[in-house]
């Protein structure tokens, strides 16, 4: 996946589409950014220049699908993290999760969230849950898995048509499909002919915390140097930064 941060305008459509697709419950009254259950979190970041010179970028942050020594997988005592050797997608098996949250500690991207409470929807909304995705229970960790329900549907469609390979057009995660600015490109990074491969190697493409060597499979792209500089920093804002905006 490649996300063009110059096109992203922070509309939040990806975060909402993700919640609807993956049956992520709405916030409870006291929820905040720290205890949220969000598989896709879009953050506004600033270059800290004073008005009117300031600039803002919006960074969709979710599981970066680490290729090398996947940190969450290596620490999970329950074997609840599963990397698909064919697609490279890092999956989470909530039924195996015991809620120790080692994976949340290990994840350098803060991309995992913990279900502190039972999921809650209004009665009518319960009937509107995606039938392809089981709701997760209290006490387990969850994260983005590139909409595995859509992947299964694409595989079933391919199987029904007698094909071994899915049609790339049949499998697009909800965030990609919903983006009104087409800022997110999805595909096979190993396919040299694909747009996603080309974009991942273009000028301005980068990965967050690349120095850790986890080889994330999510790339970002921007022409703004100050945004690229953020890629090597911790994602947690310091108190100093909170103060200075």
């Amino acid at each position, binding site marked *: 996946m490649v996300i063009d941060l110059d*096109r992203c*305008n922070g*509309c*939040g*459509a990806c*975060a*909402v*589409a*993700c*919640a*609807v*697709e993956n049956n*992520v*419950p*709405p*916030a*409870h*009254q006291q*929820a905040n*950014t720290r205890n*949220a*259950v*969000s598989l*896709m979190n*879009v*953050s*506004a970041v*600033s270059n800290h*220049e*004073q*008005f009117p010179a*300031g600039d*803002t970028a919006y960074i969709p942050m979710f599981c970066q699908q680490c290729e090398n020594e996947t940190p969450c997988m290596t620490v999970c005592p329950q074997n609840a993290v599963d990397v698909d050797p064919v697609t490279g997608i890092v999956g989470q098996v909530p039924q195996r999760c*015991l809620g120790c949250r080692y994976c949340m500690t290990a994840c350098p991207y803060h991309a995992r969230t913990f279900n502190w409470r*039972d*999921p*809650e*929807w*209004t009665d*009518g*909304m319960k*009937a*509107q*849950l995606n*039938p392809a995705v*089981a*709701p997760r*229970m*209290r*006490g*387990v960790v969850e994260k983005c898995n590139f909409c595995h329900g859509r992947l299964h549907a694409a595989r079933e469609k391919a199987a029904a048509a007698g094909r071994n390979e899915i049609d790339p057009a049949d499998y697009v995660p*909800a965030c990609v*499909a*919903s983006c*009104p*600015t*087409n800022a997110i490109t999805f595909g096979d990074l190993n396919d040299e002919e694909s747009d996603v491969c080309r974009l991942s190697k273009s000028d301005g493409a980068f990965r967050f915390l690349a120095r850790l060597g986890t080889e994330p499979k999510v790339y970002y792209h921007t022409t703004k140097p100050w945004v690229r500089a953020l890629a090597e920093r911790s994602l947690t804002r310091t108190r100093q930064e*909170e*103060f200075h*905006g």
Partner: protein
Amino acid sequence: MNRKTVMPSKLTRRDILKYSGGTLLGVMLSPLPWKLLDDSAIWTQNWSLTPKLSHGPLSSLVSRCTLCQAGCAVQADCVGGTPYRLAGIDGGLCAPGLAGHHLAHHPLRIVHPHLFSGRDDMSTMTAVPLNEAAAVISKRLALRIGSTAVLDHQPGRPVSEQYRTFLAAADGLYLVPSSREEETVARLRAMSSVPSHNYGFDLENSTLIVSFGAPLLDGWGVPSVMQSLRLNGAARFVQVDCRRSRTAAQAHEWLPVRPGTERLLALSVLNVLLHEGLVTAAVKRNVADLNDALRTTRPLTPEAAAPVTGIAAPVVRDLAVRLAASDGAVVLSGADAGGGPFDAETQKAVAAINVLIGAVGRRGGIVRRTTVPGIPAHAPAMTLAEAPDRSIGVLFVDGADSGYAVPWELIERKLQKDALVVSFSPVLNTVSAHADVLIPAPAPYEAAAGIPNGPGAPAASFAVSMPLLPKNEHTAEPSDVLRLLAAELGIAPEFPSSEDAAKRTAEAVHASKRGSVRTPDGSVTAVAEIGSAEELWTLFTGGARWTDEPERTGAMPRFTLGLTGTDAAAPTMQGLAMIANGWRGTVSASQISPVLSKVFQESELRHNAGTVLLNPLTASSFGLNAGDAATVSTDRGTMTVRVRTDAGVRPDTIEAVIGPLPNGAETPRHPSGRTMLDLCAVAADGTWRITPAFIQKA
């Protein structure tokens, strides 16, 4: 040495303790307690609180979103006939639109007609049958105390015609919101010698789009179209904005004008146009009061205005020259969703720029728009702010959403003492929570609805939103209520259901043989080639949109600009300037799906109601840090708010977020409670963009 083994003669307390401790340790070392803990955890995890999923066949339906007037085409994936996810067809949906199917099940959804005992959060609601609610209204109408009025949040729909018909019989006022996308074209109509002409913005062919405060790239018009205009680079966006709004941040150029000086900046642009020979002779001939305009703008040079507006004179001069030179330039002003409209004089100055650069009637500018067949042209509707104060005895508030905030103070000002307010909203919101009678209309996707032109669209269009959800049997369409009232009052006209009204419009479109129909798969068919009205209706129910041919403009009308001067002096204000702002469709004038908490509450992408943004320097001068609680005071009252800091905020201002209340699936806050909107000073002309305010640590 002999050693004797002595058996204990009795069990001591120490022995019992040792035995108990050993047993406990032994059990702890066994898997038993841990298995019990694990099982009980799993048992509680899987209580009925974790819902089971719906069963049934999967299907896909097509409809149109009615959350705003853009009417985006929607594909709904359904399980057992119930939609579980929505996706845009010919462009992405906005975040609220992606969860529009949840609104029928919003925690604040109302499904029965109710009578309220008062207008505050302590009021009680009593569910009543529809007939009883209608009887209360007709009794009040029969008294003929004050005017009868309808506030229509989405004018131009088939149901809007029914409101007009009812009001014509009842001699009432048809009102539209003060804040809307078509602010500039409405002002042009009023300045024109032919006010019945309709206008729209031909933005898709524009090369230079100058916006005074309109949130063009943050939900304005059809959001996906506006974004594609920005991204394909055909048009250059220039945003004149006193704060670093989302549109200002995305525009190609941003002119950070000082708060409250937008009118002076527009007049200084007019000064350059009029006094530096940038207006063509043909345009001059079309302006009835050119000499007045020359006289009014003469002292307002860019140099005189610059110290006040904060925009350097060469920048203003350059902008005026580019506007005059570009053959696809357009200028528009627009309300902020939370901050409300500009005052009439600012709107006039902006509209006048269009006249003087020749943008009216030109490709890429402001073009004449035909009307939808079956929906007649009307003179410009009166805005809520223009209605006489204390004149309305019975006010009907339409249940659709304009997307813009409507301060209750502005409505209340128009009401007579003991006036009756009837709301057709399907949910409790900041307006319907103050009503006396609530007759909930069907929620989005519960009933068919005709969707006319998108906001500011250059050509007349029509589409139909088909129901995706079963209609709640206790809800009533506005036409049902109007029909009951007409029968009680002896008013003759008939009021068809919204689906029948949409069908009649489709018949009129077919009969006109004008324009073409575009289906969601992209195929285009001329109406003249469609065999019957039924065939056209079938296309509409499949998500098609009819678009008219461009209006053959002919001779342009003359315009009377009616400009008035202003002092080139900075507005004086005690305290900080509080600038209200919000995001269209989320300002509590309606409700949004609870999952929008991902945007408003569980991330810092947007802010909930009760948040203020301060520049860090301003915050520190008041001893405030990010996350602190603070009290904001204006002459309307005091509220405790949460402070966020952002270096992008103009120093010495408070950006007051007019956002949604936290509205998760639990008990939401009562929407009639005070919000930041209630702290804004609503002026006599219905504006509340800037309010003097004070802030201190709570």
